[in-house]
């Protein structure tokens, strides 16, 4: 049975589309208040150093400088960059401004001046004497006795290890037909959203603070500012009209948000702080580089019987999301491919003096599933099975445990694999590497993943929605959901329109203002459609009920005879009355009294994906070209077709970059990032993208989601990495276990093989 939807599943024009294509969309840096001062942060040039003395006298007397702050002038209590309820998955170790630099770029002081140029000059006039401390950039070195103390935690670990165990791994290994083990590493990619971080702060005459910030989590900004700077919560309003990408980095507050508020308060003027592009490389977040050691036991017939692994993440100078990322990455390894419920997994996060790692689209799953999916290929080789057939044999399905512990429904992973293999013509095209020859060799590879729609159970999942009827039959939808460019607000409007039975164009979305929107924990963890959207759907159901009750009275008809379609009340299948005529208020209840609100708490659902990649590897230069990707995603229900495609295509772009070219390279002596710019940090652009065929399946709608919809934002960036690595291995006949797969690594791998074969 195929249900027809009025607007869900199609691609109506984005509600904020016209602003974006005409240049009238207001982003943080576009706000210009009279009297605005410009703030800049003085950053440590050293990766590990103690401030011995600091002298701001010269900076203070510079013409045009209104305020100077050092670590002595700001609250000293440590915080997590996010408010207290999130603290379970974060480390509470950050400083508003610090007297001990723990990575190159750590903020020591700040100024506010009448122009950015004067602010820069003032920064140079702040005299700081540093005592250089020994630094450490390697996670193994950092845990050894005698390693430099970064935060004074035992073995420089961010938190106690995450340990998950079930069954009897040792016994299973003892009787396994085969044991396969390996070590896998991932690099240090960085988000590179197009809009540099920015924050504008302004106090009014009542002491009320308004913050315009490029953030994914306006309510978190409000709460953290309140906690850390001791400003009453209700005196803070956070507004986000438009923001230019985040990918996880902008769910945190950085030093500039706290400093901006303090400078605005101290000077009594609005203050704007814009990160330079270089600062976004140095002083925001990176993905955690992770070393995964993985070992499987398996039977001759390819059944996996046990899995053992360690997942160790490099946190950089501060902990940030280290606990959460490590937990997710480690615990994810209990699923995706069954292992007879015998597992022993341990996750750790280690401080080093590298730039701070944090939340990045995929949140630990990218690294863990990379290791698992590459080892799946290695195991297929050992038992002589085709990589897709081997995966189908072990793929999780109905009843198998998901990472959250809940049993899964359906066979989405298998369906994604089957559909993708068919589209790619895998059976005919996949060949053993041994038969390949020539300087340029083609390879085919598959990568898979699963991802939750929401961060339950690590975080209490909650979203709200308020629908307010207008006298003309249109509806204001107040949502706390944040739209980083994903089209989330458009999807919310589609959901409301579909559920209510009124036109999409008659839904007016009000979002991005903490004074007005219902509380929402923010846009991350692929939650906005599944959870934010469900709140909207529930609120719409309630509102519809109110309208039908009113209509039943007006028409003197039982409510069971009524429905709403295309903005009209339908009585026994025939239009009887327009919604506008129903609510316009002469003789009946005034429209403004028709409001519904819902707070929705969620459990969790899982989306799946299988990516098939075709690559060409030049065996003389080591360069890789990804020619084609077939991306199959199971998402429950598409709300906005182009929105889902956009997430897949964009996720593949980032994942492709992480797999072959993107890495923030650090000087091993000083910890200084060597490529903190777009010209030296290589991202795939228009000339580098493969052709992408997206296939979206709706096999397992989840009743917890609006019309069954699950998330999709993070899935594509996870599946593409192992697909490419496995394709490269297939092309050159050498196993690739480390990202990014640079030309040097390809050539080294081939040389090692050549020597081993001698």
């Amino acid at each position, binding site marked *: 049975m195929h249900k027809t939807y009025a607007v869900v599943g199609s691609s109506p024009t984005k509600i904020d589309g016209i602003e974006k294509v*005409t240049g009238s969309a207001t982003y943080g840096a576009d706000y210009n208040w009279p009297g605005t001062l410009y703030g800049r942060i003085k950053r440590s040039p050293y990766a590990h150093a103690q401030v011995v003395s600091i002298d701001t006298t010269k900076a203070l007397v510079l013409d045009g400088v209104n305020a100077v702050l050092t670590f002595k002038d700001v609250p000293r209590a440590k915080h997590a960059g996010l408010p207290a309820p999130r603290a379970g998955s974060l480390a509470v170790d950050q400083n508003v401004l610090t007297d001990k630099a723990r990575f190159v770029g750590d903020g020591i002081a700040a100024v506010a001046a009448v122009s950015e140029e004067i602010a820069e000059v003032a920064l140079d006039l702040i005299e700081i004497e540093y005592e250089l401390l020994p630094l450490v950039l390697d996670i193994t070195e950092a845990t050894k006795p005698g390693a430099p103390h970064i935060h004074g935690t035992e073995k420089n670990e961010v938190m106690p290890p995450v340990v998950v165990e079930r069954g009897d791994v040792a016994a299973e290994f003892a009787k396994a037909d085969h044991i396969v083990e390996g070590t896998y590493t991932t690099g240090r990619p960085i988000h590179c959203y197009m809009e540099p971080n920015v924050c504008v702060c302004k106090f009014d005459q009542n002491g009320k603070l308004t913050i315009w910030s490029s953030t994914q989590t306006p309510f978190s900004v409000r709460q953290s500012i309140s906690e850390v700077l001791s400003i009453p919560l209700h005196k803070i309003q956070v507004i986000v009209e438009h923001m230019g990408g985040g990918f996880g980095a902008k769910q945190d507050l950085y030093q500039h948000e706290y400093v901006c508020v303090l400078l605005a308060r101290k000077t009594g003027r609005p203050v704007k702080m814009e990160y330079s592009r270089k600062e976004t490389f140095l002083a925001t977040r990176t993905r955690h580089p992770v070393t995964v050691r993985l070992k499987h036991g398996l039977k001759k017939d390819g059944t996996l019987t046990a899995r053992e692994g360690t997942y160790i993440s490099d946190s950089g100078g501060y902990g940030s999301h280290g606990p959460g990322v490590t937990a997710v990455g480690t615990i994810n390894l209990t699923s995706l491919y069954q292992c007879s419920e015998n597992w022993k997994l341990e996750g750790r996060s280690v401080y080093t003096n590298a730039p701070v790692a944090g939340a990045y689209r995929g949140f630990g799953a990218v690294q863990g599933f990379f290791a698992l999916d590459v080892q799946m290929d290695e195991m297929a080789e050992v038992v002589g099975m085709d990589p897709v057939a081997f995966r189908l044999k072990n793929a999780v399905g109905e009843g198998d445990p998901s990472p959250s512990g809940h049993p899964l429904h359906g066979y989405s992973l298998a369906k994604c694999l089957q559909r993708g293999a068919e589209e790619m013509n895998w059976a005919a095209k996949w060949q053993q590497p041994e038969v390949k020859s020539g300087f340029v060799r083609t390879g085919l590879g598959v990568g898979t993943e699963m991802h939750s729609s929401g961060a339950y159970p690590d975080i209490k999942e909650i979203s709200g929605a308020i629908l307010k009827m207008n006298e003309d039959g249109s509806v204001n939808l107040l949502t706390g959901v944040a739209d980083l460019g994903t089209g989330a607000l458009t999807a919310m409007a589609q959901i409301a329109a579909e559920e209510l039975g009124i036109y999409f164009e008659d839904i007016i979305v009000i979002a991005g203002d903490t004074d007005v929107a219902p509380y929402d924990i923010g846009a991350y963890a692929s939650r906005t459609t599944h959870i934010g959207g469900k709140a909207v759907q529930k609120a719409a159901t309630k509102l519809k009920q109110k309208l039908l009750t009113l209509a039943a009275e007006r028409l003197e008809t039982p409510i069971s005879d009524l429905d709403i379609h295309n903005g009209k009340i339908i009585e026994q299948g025939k239009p009887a009355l327009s919604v506008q005529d129903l609510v316009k208020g002469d003789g009946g209840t005034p429209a403004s009294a028709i409001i519904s609100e819902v707070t929705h708490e969620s459990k969790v659902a899982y989306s799946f994906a299988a990516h098939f990649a075709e690559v060409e590897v030049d065996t003389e230069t080591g360069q890789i070209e990804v020619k084609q990707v077939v991306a199959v995603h199971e998402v429950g229900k598409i709300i906005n077709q182009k929105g889902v495609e956009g997430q897949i295509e964009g996720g593949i772009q980032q994942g492709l970059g992480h797999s072959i070219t993107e890495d923030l390279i650090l000087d091993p002596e000083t910890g200084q990032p060597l490529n903190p710019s777009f010209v030296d940090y290589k991202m795939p652009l228009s000339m580098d993208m493969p052709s992408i065929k997206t296939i979206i399946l709706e096999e397992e709608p989840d009743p917890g989601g609006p019309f069954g919809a699950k998330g999709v934002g993070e899935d594509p960036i996870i599946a593409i990495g192992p697909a490419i690595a496995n394709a490269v291995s297939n092309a050159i006949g050498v196993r690739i276990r480390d990202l990014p797969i640079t030309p040097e690594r390809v050539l080294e791998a081939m040389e090692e093989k050549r020597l081993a074969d001698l």
Partner: protein
Amino acid sequence: MKRLVTFTVNGEMQKVTVEPYRSLLDVLRNEVGLTGTKKGCDVGDCSACTVILNGQPVNSCLVLGVEADGMVIETIEGLAQKMEDGYALHPLQKNFLKYGAAQCGFCTPGMIMAAKALLDGNPHPTEAEVRFAIAGNICRCTGFAKIVEAILRTNVDG
């Protein structure tokens, strides 16, 4: 010491006084007050700040305001035609909407201007020509698929 600079922006003459070290990007965003052109990196690496200067697409962060004296500048704000009640969008803008080519929208003004510069000189480009014309425009959201589609389907004659 500020200098008087006169140029035409989107058909209107603008006279502004600027420091000689100010970029055209900053002058457009601050003195002229057109914030549609975005600052992605300020060093010429990302092309978010693309405007059309005397018919050529340029990174406005790499042009000094004073260099643009006497020149003709087109920015994103000049594409849509103002009508009595609303705007008539340029075909490129219509297609960016239709094909879902804008996600966060930050690269979009620069991307559209780069595309316009291409189509002004070559109304029927091949896919390779489109990808080359926007090769310097960084987008981190879309993977470029829908951007390329939107530009390819824009027929400036029709």
